[in-house]
C-alpha cells in the first residue's frame, strides 16, 4: 500500500512538471503582453524599458527557469495589471470558489443518491421515468443557460433571491465563509444549484444503474428470503456496494466542478478564482493566468491521488488483490 502511494506520488510530480512546462509555453510564448500594458503613443525606448522591467526580454528557457525557481518558493510573479503577487490574488479568491464547489457537491450528493435509489427501486414507475427524463435534461442543458434562466425566474420574475454576488461573510479559522449567514445562503443557493445540476444528473443515473445491478444479486435475494425488511437491505447491503463507484466519480468530478465554476462565477458575479481567470484572460494578465492554471493542476493531481488512495482503501477486492500480487 505504501509502495503504491509512493509510486502515485512520483507520477504526480512528473505530471506537474510536464503540465507546468505546457502551461508556461502556451501562455508566455504566444502573443505579446507588452502591447497591452504600454500606451499606444509609447516609443521604442519606453517599450524596451517596459519589456525589461517585466522580464520579458530574456530567452524563453531562462524565463521558464526563473518561473520554476519562483514557483517552488511560492512566488508566481506579480500581476501585470495590479502589481500584486499573483499567488496572493488567487489564494484570496480560492475560498469563494471552494465554497461554491463544496455546496454544489453537497446538493448533488444529497439529492442525487436518494433520487437514484428511488428510480432504481421502481424503474417502471411514473416517478422513476420523470426522474430519468429530468436527468437527461440535467446533463444536456448548458450550465450558463440554466444560470440565466434561474436568474430570470427567481430574481426578475419572482423576486425571491438576489441575482448576483456573494452574501455577508463570517471568518472561520481565518477563512471567510458565507454559508453561515442567512444572507450568505440566499446568495449561495442559485449558483450552487446551477453548478450542481450536471453532477446531480450524473449521480442519479449512476446510482440508479448501481441499484438495479445490486438488487439483482444473490445476496439481496437471500437477505429478503431471510425476512429482512427492504429498508434494512437497502441501508446495510445495497448502499455500501454502490457507494464505491459513486465516491470515485464524485471525487473525480470535484475537479470538474471547480473548472465549471468559471462559468457560474461569471454569470452570478461570484468573486472566485474562475471570474479572476476570465478577467485576466480579457486583460492578458499572464502571471495570473499561469498561476491559476498551476494551482488548478496541483489541485487536480491531488484530487486524483486522494481518490485513488480512497478507492484502494474502500474496496477490499483491490486491497486483497494487491496483497496477493
Amino acid at each position, binding site marked *: 500500500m505504501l509502495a503504491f502511494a509512493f509510486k502515485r506520488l512520483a507520477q504526480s510530480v512528473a505530471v506537474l512538471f510536464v503540465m507546468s512546462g505546457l502551461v508556461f509555453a502556451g501562455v508566455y510564448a504566444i*502573443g505579446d503582453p507588452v502591447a497591452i500594458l504600454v500606451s499606444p503613443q509609447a516609443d521604442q525606448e519606453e517599450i524596451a524599458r517596459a519589456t525589461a522591467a517585466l522580464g520579458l526580454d530574456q530567452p524563453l528557457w531562462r524565463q521558464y527557469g526563473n518561473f520554476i525557481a519562483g514557483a517552488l518558493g511560492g512566488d508566481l510573479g506579480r500581476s501585470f495589471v495590479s502589481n500584486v503577487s499573483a499567488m496572493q490574488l488567487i489564494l484570496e479568491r480560492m475560498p469563494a470558489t471552494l465554497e461554491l464547489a463544496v455546496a454544489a457537491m453537497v446538493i448533488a450528493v444529497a439529492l442525487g443518491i436518494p433520487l437514484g435509489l428511488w428510480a432504481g427501486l421502481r424503474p417502471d414507475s411514473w416517478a422513476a421515468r420523470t426522474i430519468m427524463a429530468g436527468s437527461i435534461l440535467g446533463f444536456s442543458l448548458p*450550465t450558463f443557460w440554466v444560470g*440565466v434562466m434561474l436568474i430570470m425566474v427567481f430574481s426578475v420574475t419572482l423576486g425571491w433571491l438576489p441575482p448576483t454576488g456573494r452574501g455577508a461573510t463570517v471568518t472561520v479559522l481565518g477563512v471567510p465563509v458565507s454559508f453561515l449567514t442567512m444572507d450568505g445562503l440566499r446568495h449561495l443557493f442559485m449558483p450552487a444549484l446551477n453548478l450542481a445540476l450536471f453532477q446531480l444528473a450524473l449521480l442519479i443515473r449512476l446510482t440508479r444503474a448501481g441499484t438495479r445491478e445490486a438488487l439483482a444479486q444473490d445476496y439481496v435475494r437471500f437477505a429478503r428470503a431471510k425476512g429482512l425488511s427492504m429498508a434494512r437491505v437497502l441501508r446495510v447491503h445495497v448502499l455500501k456496494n454502490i457507494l464505491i463507484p459513486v465516491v470515485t466519480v464524485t471525487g473525480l468530478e470535484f475537479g470538474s466542478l471547480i473548472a465549471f465554476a*468559471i*462559468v457560474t462565477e461569471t454569470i452570478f458575479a461570484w468573486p472566485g478564482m474562475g471570474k479572476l481567470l476570465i478577467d485576466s484572460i*480579457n486583460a492578458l494578465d499572464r502571471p495570473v493566468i499561469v498561476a491559476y492554471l498551476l494551482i488548478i493542476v496541483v489541485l487536480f493531481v491531488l484530487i486524483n491521488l486522494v481518490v485513488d488512495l480512497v478507492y484502494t482503501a474502500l474496496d477490499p477486492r483491490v486491497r486483497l488483490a494487491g496483497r496477493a500480487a
Partner: protein
Amino acid sequence: MTTASSPHSPHVSPLSGFWRDYARDRIAVAAVAAMALILLSAIFAPLLSPQNPYDLAQLDILDAKLAPGAKASAGFTYWLGSDDQGRDMASAILYGLRISLGVGVASTLIALAIGVAVGLAAGYAGGWVDGLIMRIVDLQLSFPSILIALVLLAAVGQGVDKIVIALVLVQWAYYARTVRGTALVEKRKEYVEAARVMAFGRMRIVIRHLLPNVLPPLIVVATVQVAHAIALEATLSFLGLGMPITEPSLGLLIANGFVHLLSGRYWISFFPGVALLITIVAINLVGDRLRDVLNPRLGSHYGA
C-alpha cells in the same frame, strides 16, 4: 430476438428494419424530427430569414430592443423581437444555429478521424507506442474540457477556425481511448490472424479489416459528442472567447441578452437559449436511443 430485419425475410431492407427498431420509442422519433427541422432551418437560413444579421448595413440601430411582434422600419415583423444592435432575433438565431451546428459537426468529425487513427495505431502496434500514446491521452482526459479550450482560445484568439481547432483538441483523446480498447479486443480475433497469415500488409489489415469493426460503437459516442461540442462552443462564446461580436453564435446572443434580463427584455436571451436547448436535447435523445438500439447486450444484431 427475431425482428422483421432477420435474414429470413428478404423483403425488408436492413435500413428500414433498423428504423423500425428505432421508432419503437415515440420520443426518439420526435427527437429525430426536431433534429431534421433544425438542420433544414440552418441550411436554408438565408432563404428563411427576413434579414441578414451579419450584414451591418441591414441593421437599424433605431430598431433596437423591440419586443416580439413589433414592426421593423424595413417593413417585416420582428417575430421574436430585436436585440440591442437592431438584429432580428429570428434571423440571428437561424444564422447562429448554422455556426453552432457547423462547428459542432465539423469538430466532431475531425476529432473522430484523428482519434480513430491514433487509437488504431496504438491498439494495433502495442508495446511502447501504445504506452506513450495512452499516457498522453490519459493526461489530456484528466482535465476538464472547458479548461483546455479556454486556455487555447485565450492564447490564439477568436474566430471559427480557432474554435474548431480547440474543440478538436478537446475531443480527440476520448475517441482514441475508445478505439484503442476495441482495437485491442479485435486484434486477437481470428479474422485478423487469418489476414496476417495471408501476408497482408499492416496498413491493409488495419484499414480494411479492423476499421469497419471498430466504428459501430463510435456512432453513438460521436452523436452525443456533437451535442457536447455544441454546448462547449456556446459556453465559450458566452464567456466572450468564441465567435467575434459581428458574427454571433447562439452563445454570444445569449450573453448579449444577459445584461438586459434585469430590465425585463427577456427575449434577447430567452429565444436563442430555447433554440440551443432543443438542439442539444434532441441530439442527446437520438444518441440515447441509438445506444439502446445498437446495444448487443439488449439483443441487437447490428454488429459490435
